[in-house]
């Protein structure tokens, strides 16, 4: 609204390229602590991307992303500790599959169906699922109860052990980049156009023949798959998975990452994770008991006064909404038609 211009500016690709270049060279200048820190940002970036896909693109308010993340983290931790499976080529696909299956089950409950569920219903449904499973995990000794599962073995590729550090860093970056590119293609595809329609006027586009619930359900499951993958990577990176990675606290944190950075842009979510985790780290050094208050206020200010998130300072409404037709070909054809 604040931007009457209808020109399609392209700030996002520039931000993407700059961040990628920085990410590629960062390990050359970072010490071990910061390499671990940044790797964690990449992994949490995956799950923030998954939330951006459901909320920023399909308009589904999900407080369940941690559920898919944690369930996949637990499942892969169990097959590693109980069955000795540590191959990255098995763990990552299994984590993705668990995320997909759990999110599909959740979608059956709160999204699919003839009647359109309200946003509050979906938010509360996913939140409840996340809460219940966290409680179950805390009480179930087979999965470590309150303590979760610690001292996970390292991931392996053949006989090579993938230890935390630069190798894990580049692996996480590679996976993040792959997922990012695929999501960029998806959100700019004709499927993405349907999502844009759903986000703006779901009721209207049903009359074009779209079964909008199915589009939302499918999107939700893709996001679940990504969250699951992130959960697997997280557990093996930290050497630990616990009930806290399943529950509403992490789910809410993910929502904040995306809202802070800027929903509906993909890159905003990654920026959100990086900045919030950095702020949290420094604030906790300065004031180790009260820092969440300052962080909370900061988030509140951004979410209230800049609903488009930090990226809203660089990216206009038009670029966020996107363009889906044959760019360039359009103008050429209508110029031809005008003559």
């Amino acid at each position: 609204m604040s931007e009457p211009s209808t020109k399609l500016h392209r700030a996002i690709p520039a931000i993407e390229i700059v961040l990628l270049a920085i990410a590629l060279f960062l390990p050359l200048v970072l010490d071990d602590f910061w390499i671990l820190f940044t790797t964690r940002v990449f992994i949490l970036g995956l799950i923030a991307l998954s939330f951006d896909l459901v909320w920023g693109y399909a308009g589904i308010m999900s407080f369940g992303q941690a559920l898919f993340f944690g369930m996949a983290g637990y499942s892969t931790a169990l097959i590693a500790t109980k069955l000795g499976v540590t191959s990255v080529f098995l763990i990552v696909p299994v984590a993705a599959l668990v995320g997909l299956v759990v999110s599909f089950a959740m979608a059956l409950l709160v999204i699919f169906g003839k009647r359109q569920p309200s946003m509050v219903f979906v938010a509360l449904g996913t939140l409840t699922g996340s809460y219940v499973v966290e409680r179950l995990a805390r009480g179930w000794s087979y999965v470590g109860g309150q303590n979760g599962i610690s001292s996970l073995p390292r991931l392996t590729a053949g006989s090579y052990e993938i230890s935390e550090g630069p190798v894990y860093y580049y692996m996480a970056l590679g996976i993040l980049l792959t997922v990012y590119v695929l999501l960029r293609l998806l959100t700019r595809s004709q499927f993405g156009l349907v999502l844009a329609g759903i986000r703006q006027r779901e009721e209207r586009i049903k009359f074009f023949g779209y079964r909008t619930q199915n589009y939302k359900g499918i999107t939700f499951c893709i996001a679940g798959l990504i969250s699951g993958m992130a959960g697997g990577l997280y557990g093996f990176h930290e050497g630990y998975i616990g009930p806290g990675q399943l529950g509403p606290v992490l789910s809410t944190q993910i929502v904040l990452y995306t809202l802070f950075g800027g929903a509906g842009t993909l890159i905003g979510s990654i920026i959100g994770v990086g900045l919030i985790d950095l702020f949290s780290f420094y604030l906790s050094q300065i004031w180790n008991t009260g820092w969440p208050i300052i962080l909370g206020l900061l988030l509140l200010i951004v979410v209230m006064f800049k609903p488009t998130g930090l990226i809203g300072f660089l990216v206009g409404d038009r670029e966020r909404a996107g363009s889906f037709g044959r760019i360039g070909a359009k103008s050429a054809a209508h110029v031809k038609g005008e003559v």
Partner: protein
Amino acid sequence: MSLLECRQVSKIFGALTALDHADLSVKPNEFHGLIGPNGSGKSTLLKCIAGAEIPTSGSVLLSGVDITGLTPAERAEAGLSLKFQITAVLAELSVYDNVLLAQQSQSSWLSLMRSRSRGALHERVMDTLQRFKLADRADDIAGTLSHGQQQWLEIAMALAREPKLLLLDEPTAGMSPQERRATGELLAPMRERCSLLIVEHDLDFIRDICDSLTVLDQGQIVASGRTQDVQEDERVKSAYLSHA
């Protein structure tokens, strides 16, 4: 056989009977006008046909098949299409993307993910935009169009799936006389391809394009038949002209 048949359709909102046992039929390739004073139930009848409202009682048949319980998406697949009274273009998307969204709706979600029909639909999208005088606005966002142009865009989108029956609720509201005439000229050639049920206040417009006419008053059908005959009807004159 009729293309559309409404049998004893009633719609009750709380204490208000918006539609009272309405019967209506539209033949293939017929242009059918629906008139009546404000609040007489015209929009409600269109919504019951399109699936935006479910009738309290009665049934709606399309080509002899009962569609009363179908969802809007299923009705669109069965050949129904509409423009609501309130314009509802996707204001943040380009004009081009609005039309593309309407035209790609027959593709499966998997092929949409791979953008398989994007190239093939390009010519069709541009043809549609040319026909509705919107080609030079293709790259502009739909929210910046004038009200009249938004109405045309909506009609263009409603026609995207080549419906058997097009429902238009006050398509010329807010248009200048020239735009109205242009709208009539845009609709006329549709007769070969589909039927039209149109709500319109401008009686001259109705007279120009409609073969038959139905008059609603307080939820009841007051008269229905060939346009000339209905216009001569004394009850119609009193019901419609006294309220309007």
